[in-house]
């Protein structure tokens, strides 16, 4: 599980000198990183170091935050995602996001998953849509649990189920990249374990970036790890290397529990 990939995978996302300001305050001081395909990349670091901020840059969710300004360049498959003629809506369909707290829409389970395909016009018919919903739920490992109550509200599920529903919802749009911001921090240990397993499975088909405050989790699920500190990317590399053999003193301190 913890084994690093043997073949170096192709790069999906590249970031160069990304800076973010919230009003006068600078939250990121020039982040450059390459994120590989078909792998899980974990961002770790103490609270407030800018992990979420950087994650939000990747699907331009920062656009929705008032006063946030993004500098530098991020490319998805070689295309600048901050290019003026790029349609954000399209980008977000390609780069899905799962949040810290499970946030299903207050609609039925079916509608939760069907929403994305509907607005993006992905299904030509009702049967098409059904098919997308079922396969997404199945991929998220939720189908068996909810197949009898697809019309009940998604908010009625347990925390872990809700989070998987959110993952299914993100998958349904057929994204290439899935961003997860502390997806397990609101869950109990058992639900966490289920999600972690799911992430490991999804890796086969998606590029996954996950933010976590738990080094243990990073060690468990990721192949690559990036350590952030005070708005800087301190160190990045194969997860195994970072955890067993950090180069940087700060990384070391953090991993040993001396800071944070």
């Amino acid at each position, binding site marked *: 599980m913890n084994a690093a990939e043997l073949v170096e995978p192709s790069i999906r996302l590249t970031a160069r000198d990304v800076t973010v300001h919230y009003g006068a305050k600078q939250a990121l001081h020039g982040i450059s990183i390459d994120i590989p395909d078909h792998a899980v990349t974990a961002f770790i670091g103490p609270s407030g170091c800018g992990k979420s901020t950087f994650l939000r840059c990747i699907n331009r*969710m920062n656009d929705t935050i008032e006063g946030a300004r993004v500098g530098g360049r991020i490319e998805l498959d070689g295309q600048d995602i901050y290019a003026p003629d790029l349609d954000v*809506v399209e980008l977000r369909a390609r780069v899905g996001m799962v949040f810290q707290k499970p946030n299903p829409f207050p609609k039925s389970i079916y509608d939760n998953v069907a929403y994305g395909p509907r607005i993006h016009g992905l299904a030509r018919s009702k049967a098409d849509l059904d098919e997308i919903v079922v396969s997404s739920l199945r991929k998220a490992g939720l189908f068996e649990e909810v197949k009898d109550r697809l019309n009940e509200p998604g908010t009625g599920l347990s925390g872990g189920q809700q989070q998987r529903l959110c993952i299914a919802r993100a998958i349904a749009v057929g994204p290439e990249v899935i961003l997860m911001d502390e997806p397990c921090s609101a869950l109990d240990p058992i639900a966490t374990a289920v999600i972690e397993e799911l992430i490991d499975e999804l890796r086969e088909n998606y590029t996954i970036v996950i933010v976590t405050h738990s080094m243990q989790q990073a060690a468990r699920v990721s192949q690559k790890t990036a350590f952030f500190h005070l708005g800087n990317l301190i160190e990045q590399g194969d997860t195994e290397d970072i955890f067993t053999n950090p180069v940087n003193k700060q990384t070391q301190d953090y991993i040993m529990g001396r800071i944070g």
Partner: protein
Amino acid sequence: MTSTSLGQAAARRERVRAGLARRHAGERLFRAFGVVAIVLALGFVALLFTDVLRKGIPAFTQSNIRLEITFDPELLKVDPAPVREAGQSDADYRAQSLAWQRQVAMLNWNNVIEAGLRQAAPAGYEIDARQILTITETDARHRVREIFVADPGLLGETVTVDLLASANTDNWIKGNINRELGDAQQQLSAPARALIDLFVENGTISQGFAWSLFTNVDSRSAPASAGLLGALMGSLWMMLIVIVLAVPIGVGSAIYLEEFAPRSRLTDLIEVNINNLAAVPSIVFGLLGAAVFINWFRLPLSAPLAGGLVLTLMTLPTIIIATRAALKGVSPALRQAALGMGASKTQMVFHHVLPVTFPSILTATIIGVAQALGETAPLLLIGMNAFVAAVPATPVEQATALPVQIYLWQANENRNFFEPRTSAAILVLLALMIFLNAIAIFLRSRLEKRV
């Protein structure tokens, strides 16, 4: 740890304990103030309601007179009603029957009623024609005539007719006017009063539910038959206009300001402006309505359309502010979820945010509309205090409104009769109001349960 610090701790504890009694007394006092405030507020609600109920309830019953009316051909010298002949054109027939109706209207129907009254009275009761007719309401002759017009075959027949007793009769029976007062201070003559008492005894006059209050329009010539139907309809029309206009505009405006508008001087200005509009005295809206809708757009005076527009403008800020508050309350998680799915901002708002806030918007709307329903002052300035004796079939026909009707009735010169009637009208308005508020509260509680 030393013994001195232990001693200090003990001393401190003593100090704290010493002050406790006083502090708890203060606590109780403060609490008592709170209870007093609640009791005062509730007490006033109770006082207001019992007072209005006490005054208004009697007006829900009314004195009715049951008379045997004979359509005596001696008294009613009238041509036979026109019968439609074969080949007669519509217009011809209508003209003919109108002419006949006019002829019927010119008859002195009071004679017929007088005969009926005398028949109900003990034989040979001494009272002159003028006095005996004060017992029934002045519109009795129209009622009787309508019966005849509807069925001209009744000529020569006797039918039992229920008529309204006059307002003064009602006052006398209910004791609204001091029964001890002398003749000079009574509205009815002594023989009439005695006869009424006789009628009450022999059952000719009985108390019944005052249906006239709900089925009749306002009346000045026949106070006892004055009703609220016209005013109710006027109010309903205005509410309809307010709902149709204020809700979409208000919600749209709130959505723009809360979701789309960039923070700028202009939006700040709009915000200040809306908050200010919410507090602008209603009478100023009346001035605006008079100047803009009546004088400029030349909308018909005292029509529910103009009233509805003024009330719309008044309600708008309420709805905008409440909707904005509701939109603000939507969790950012939901917004992010939608945006993260690749929904555009518009889609996010219309697919997710708005449905979630729907109940609060509905509540705000109901409350706003209820407020508009009770508003009087601006309507006075756009002429809605007109006397209208018809039910408005469209919003451009003249009408009055419930609160305005209350205002008009409280000024009616027949104080003894209209004071209870005003209270009754108030009860009707309050019932409507509480009904609307109850819906709002119900929705709110449903909403709270869902969240």
